[in-house]
């Protein structure tokens, strides 16, 4: 076997890993879209906000310190304590639940029954709002997540496989962070599925996703369910924010990961959790392989961004509702 063949496999493996990271972001979109028909553009900013909050809480940063200092002329920045990681994660989740409650209470409750594009627009407003609040609360410098996540290539795997493809092959490279992300994503998806299948709230959530009015008529509180899905989306956002933030530091650009999730959604369907995962994997592998085989050697590289969308577009032409989306039935 030639080294190129093994490198191809390596690209596929890394594509799968990248796909998991895309799927993590896409998952948050799917949860909200399924339950309420809202295409939540703010998901990326939620990931940023959640990660910022986590870092801020852990390091004992004073929220809105810059604003407070500017108004009152004080010089406060830190509380001077460090919160242990688990407690900080818990506190961050509380913040995300509170955020979900606010979003429901102040925005989407008033927009029930509006057209999808209006709801979409409202989430864009929300994205702006949250971005501004995040910046005001925690400042706009780049922060480092100190959760002790492993980073770097897996040396063991590299050495174990280095003999495969001759002298030009250096063994498979897999980032340990990606492995962790995959495990976390697996746990997350399994627990979401278990939650949706076997708990009362989970069933209620599925009922709402199926038919709002029928769910309402059997006594399910729509309000509660919507707060619930926004909270779950907040949880997913936190995980995505931490995983992406571990690579680049927590910074503004984190909100742009939403753009990486959109082709995944198109491909997998807006309403399917397995679709998000499979879509993520296909996009991850597809774009990496295209860059490896065609993009970098022939087109000058940097093709991944648009190729992901092109790939999804081609899929859609054959299946307009995405791979796993609900069949669109139209009646006159």
């Amino acid at each position: 076997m030639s080294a190129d063949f093994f490198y191809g496999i390596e690209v596929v493996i890394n594509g799968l890993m990248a796909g998991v990271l895309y799927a993590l972001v896409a998952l948050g979109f799917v949860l909200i879209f399924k339950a309420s028909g809202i295409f939540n553009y703010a998901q990326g900013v939620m990931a940023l906000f959640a990660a910022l909050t986590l870092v801020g809480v852990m390091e004992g940063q004073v929220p809105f310190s810059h604003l407070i200092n500017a108004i009152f002329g004080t010089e406060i920045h830190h509380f001077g304590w460090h919160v242990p990681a688990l407690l900080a994660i818990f506190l961050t989740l509380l913040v995300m639940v509170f955020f979900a409650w606010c979003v429901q209470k102040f925005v989407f409750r008033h927009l029930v029954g509006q057209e999808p594009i209006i709801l979409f627009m409202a989430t864009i407003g929300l994205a702006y709002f949250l971005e501004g609040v995040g910046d005001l609360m925690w400042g706009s410098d780049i922060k480092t997540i100190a959760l002790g996540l492993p980073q770097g290539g897996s040396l063991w795997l590299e050495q174990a496989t280095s003999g495969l493809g001759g002298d030009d092959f250096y063994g498979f490279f897999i980032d340990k962070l990606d492995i962790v992300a995959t495990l976390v994503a697996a746990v997350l998806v399994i627990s979401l599925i278990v939650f949706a299948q076997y708990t009362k709230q989970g069933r209620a959530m599925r009922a709402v996703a199926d038919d709002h009015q029928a769910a309402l008529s059997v006594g399910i509180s729509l309000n509660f369910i919507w707060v619930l899905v926004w909270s779950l989306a907040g949880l997913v956002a936190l995980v995505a924010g931490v995983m992406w933030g571990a690579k680049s530091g927590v910074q503004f650009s984190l909100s742009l990961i939403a753009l990486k999730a959109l082709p995944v959604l198109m491909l997998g369907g807006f309403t399917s959790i397995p679709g998000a995962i499979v879509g993520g994997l296909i996009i991850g592998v597809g774009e990496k392989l295209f860059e490896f085989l065609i993009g970098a050697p022939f087109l000058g590289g940097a093709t991944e961004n648009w190729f992901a969308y092109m790939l999804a577009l081609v899929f859609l032409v054959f299946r307009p509702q995405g791979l796993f989306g609900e069949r669109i039935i139209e009646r006159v």
Partner: protein
Amino acid sequence: MFYREAGDFKTSYEADNQTFPIAFDRYRYWAVLAVAYLVIPFIINDYWANAIFVPFLIYAIAAIGLNILVGYCGQVSLGTGGFMAVGAYACYKLMTAFPDVNIVLHVILAGGITAIVGAAFGLPSLRIKGFYLAVATLAAQFFLVWLFNKVEWFYNYSASGQINAPERFVAGVPVTGANTAPWAQYLICLVFLTVCAIVARNLTRGTLGRTWMAIRDMDIAAEIIGVNPLRAKLSAFAVSSFFIGVSGALFFAVYLGAVEVGEAFGIQKSFLVLFMIIIGGLGSIFGSFAGAAFLVVLPVALKVIGVDLLGWPTDIVSHLQLVIVGALIMFFLIKEPHGLAQLWRLAKEKLRLWPFPY
């Protein structure tokens, strides 16, 4: 009292078919035109031209274009930035390849080229609908930006990768380049906007506009009554892209003078123009103006209030600006999901009775 539909009797078909059949609308229209053409050019300065009016006029053209596609034909598109880039680069290539041809012609041709590209990227709309289509148009956005960045021919192999608008004249007055007077910049954009708006208004109340609206409201039903969806959708994409291309060309040549594709025509631009039409009102030409004005003026106004009047630190003001713009968008949608245009309609209702309500 002031706004009356009744009592305005038409005695000829011509009068009945005019663009603004209601007297008040007509007077308003002429009044706005008079102010725009006869007052503003004489008092405009560099700041007002470059910070407010020229961007407003150009974005209004783009918003009208996108509104035709989204508001009238119901095809959500997020490729606006990419199509504006097509307009800009087409204009640049034409300007440098045929320096003797009038710039106005170049801008129109740039619009035409964009229309062809837009129609090509509109093809998937025959299969894909709703948000799926919106995301699919992002493929156009990312691909076009990548293309203009990659292929050096588009920027004439310049080492900087930027395109610069050379100086061009209309009737002996420079309209592009550094020596352009603010009123010239303003007027050329205004003329284009006026023509575009009149064309758009008449298109949307003619046969073509009605087929678009039929497709928007229910495409299957429209097909059954004999609307050809292929023609309707592609014509909407083409016409919409034409306007967007014109605005892209003006954005590059008249407003900025030098652009780099990723920075000027990135995905943010697509979202910005979409915000404009949703805030302004889908399916309304007036809404396109209102939305463009809202999103051009509001940030500047907030900055002037925060920094210049209150003297706050610039970073806090610009964070607050995000918070306020976001909150206002949500507030407007809750109060009036149909945009500023609907507020205007309500205001007209009020005007009809004022000052003698029931």
